[in-house]
């Protein structure tokens, strides 16, 4: 059976002429029903552009899709009838964003905005639609939902707003939810609540979840599989346990070594990745990561590494991936001290 969502060799450019920025350079990933795929990457890696292309909300122009395919249950979406794509949005696939305040219209009540979907896409009456909106707010664990449907977005706290956004995006029961940095703007105690909620909803509804984030911690707690993006490519893909224990790409490894952890032993040094991510208008030849890579050799400068199969469902785009996988990670943490 075809996966729920399949992105294949997706290529997107911005601008023209010598200023052309190659934002996506062959991105492939897939998500099945009921699983969480985390797309991990730093700013400029193309993780959000991929999601916007999948949803069909990327601004074209300035963006330009130059190749690849996006299939939802086997149905090709790129080049599909815009009306068909509009129907799919909300009904089959939905998206939530980092900034829930700007994603909600400040002049309508939260309840009205959720009810709107039931009214216009399901043809429910105002009364029934509002009742369904209350149900939705209940489902995202907003206390006192009956009262809060009548409130405006500014009366909601940051966490409550993100819950309302989730309620709105799940109103029409989509099979796929794309969450673009859903907790980045939130405090850590609220982030934990929202991540728990997303995980529960995914399980209850059996929906596929694409979690786009830069936070290695969040990924480790919820992802089934992880795609690591760098300079518009998926440079590594694996299940969560494998990726963290035996990363095959030096970039993935570098990320793990540079993130400060609460369970680090005192005085453990951070090992940052030197240099800066490349400008997307001038991606280096060969492996895009080679200027920052401590292990780069001549071959890395000339030859673009293909995704190498590393056993299981693990691939990494590095000529020497097998070597790095064998090495594993060696960071001491207090959790190991305690439980090991």
């Amino acid at each position, binding site marked *: 059976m075809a996966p729920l969502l399949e992105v294949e060799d997706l290529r997107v450019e911005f601008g023209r002429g010598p200023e052309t920025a190659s934002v996506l350079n062959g991105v492939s990933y897939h998500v099945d029903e009921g699983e969480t795929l985390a797309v991990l990457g730093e700013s400029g890696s193309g993780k959000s552009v991929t999601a916007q292309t999948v949803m069909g909300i990327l601004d074209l122009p300035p963006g330009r899709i130059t190749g690849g395919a996006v299939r939802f249950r086997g149905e090709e979406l790129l080049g599909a009838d815009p009306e068909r794509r509009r129907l799919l949005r909300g009904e089959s696939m939905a998206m939530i964003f980092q900034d829930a305040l700007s994603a909600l219209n400040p002049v309508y009540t939260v309840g009205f905005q959720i009810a709107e979907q039931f009214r216009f896409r399901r043809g429910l009456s105002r009364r029934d639609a509002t009742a369904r909106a209350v149900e939705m707010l209940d489902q995202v664990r907003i206390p006192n939902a009956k009262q809060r449907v009548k409130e405006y977005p500014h009366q909601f*706290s940051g966490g409550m707003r993100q819950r309302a956004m989730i309620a709105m995006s799940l109103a029409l029961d989509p099979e796929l939810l794309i969450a673009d940095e859903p907790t980045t703007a939130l405090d*850590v105690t609220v982030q*934990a609540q929202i991540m728990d909620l997303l995980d529960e909803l995914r399980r209850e509804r059996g929906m596929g979840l694409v979690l786009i984030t830069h936070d290695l911690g969040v990924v480790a*707690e919820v992802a089934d599989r992880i795609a690591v993006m760098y300079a518009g490519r998926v440079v590594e893909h694996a299940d969560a346990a494998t990726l963290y224990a035996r990363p095959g790409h030096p970039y993935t490894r570098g990320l793990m070594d540079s*993130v400060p952890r609460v369970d680090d032993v005192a005085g453990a040094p951070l090992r940052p990745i030197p240099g800066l991510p490349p400008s997307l208008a001038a991606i280096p030849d060969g492996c895009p990561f080679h200027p920052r890579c401590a292990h780069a050799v001549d071959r890395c400068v000339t030859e673009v590494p293909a995704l190498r199969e590393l056993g299981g469902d693990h691939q990494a785009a590095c000529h020497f991936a097998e070597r790095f996988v064998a090495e594993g990670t060696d960071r001491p943490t207090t959790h190991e001290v*305690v439980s090991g």
Partner: protein
Amino acid sequence: MTSPILSVRDLVKHFPITRGVLFRRTIGHVRAVDGVSLDLHPGETLGVVGESGCGKSTLAQVLMRLIPPTGGTATFEGEDLFAKKGAALTAWRRDMQIVLQDPYTSLNPRKTVGDIVGEPFDIHPEVAPKGDRQRRVQELLEVVGLNPEHIRRYPHQFSGGQRQRIGIARALALRPKVIVCDEPVSALDVSIQAQVLNLLGDLQREFGLAYLFIAHDLGVVRHLCDRVAVMYLGSIVESGSAEDIYRRASHPYTQALLSSVPVPDPSLRGRREAIRLSGDVPSPADPPSGCRFRTRCPKARPVCAEEPPALEVRAATDHPAACHFAEPPHLVRSE
């Protein structure tokens, strides 16, 4: 222990909430900082952690004399900080500098990097003779890991991490003794964040700086700080050495905070204790009676509503915590 370079006692900052256009009247107060005491020793890093709205940034601004305090005292090298005026205030500013959070708004977009890093010398001409300034600026750029030839570039020509380095060079120019770092890496990507954190660590060793390091990211604080103070709704709820806080947190808020921080290790999934706080932080304009954390606290009992707990060492703990029922946590559940 050496005597503290910066000593703060019962610091209070309330912002009036006003209504009316022609005749403003005060209808309430936001208690942004409500009785904070702390000591910063030369050469050490004191972390102040808390979630948004806990007052940590206001604390930084009051201590930098950017906004006046409502009450409390602060001394810098034994002198009353809030009494400084005129020339004494200007001279003191050489000793205490700030690095701000947002590298995109903290640099004047219409000034060159040379002007930005050289501005401290314009304001304090006694520090560097005029002919020497360009050399000083270039040295500073080099110290923070930037190309000294780039002094004629403008901020927009640099990435976020490089801009933060420019901000650090500006703060470093007058060779201060204390630098207040207000969320200096929270706007940066992970791989860049680590570079800047290591830079801050190197500079501290090289110049013997003391940092007052304000952040919401507990992992970042873990890395840089010798001592940590945890803030909630304008007050410090727990303070101690980094080990005290990270290994033996005894205030329920600190414990919840630590357990909420996701750890980048899937093998710990389901093995860490998950304390989930319900609801949101109450408004600092109308904080709860007694213990301010009681509305979200899993341990709250009637006494918490009546009696505000003092920040002190209790029977079960070895460092100060503002909780009637402070006790060390159960660590990770072993398999």
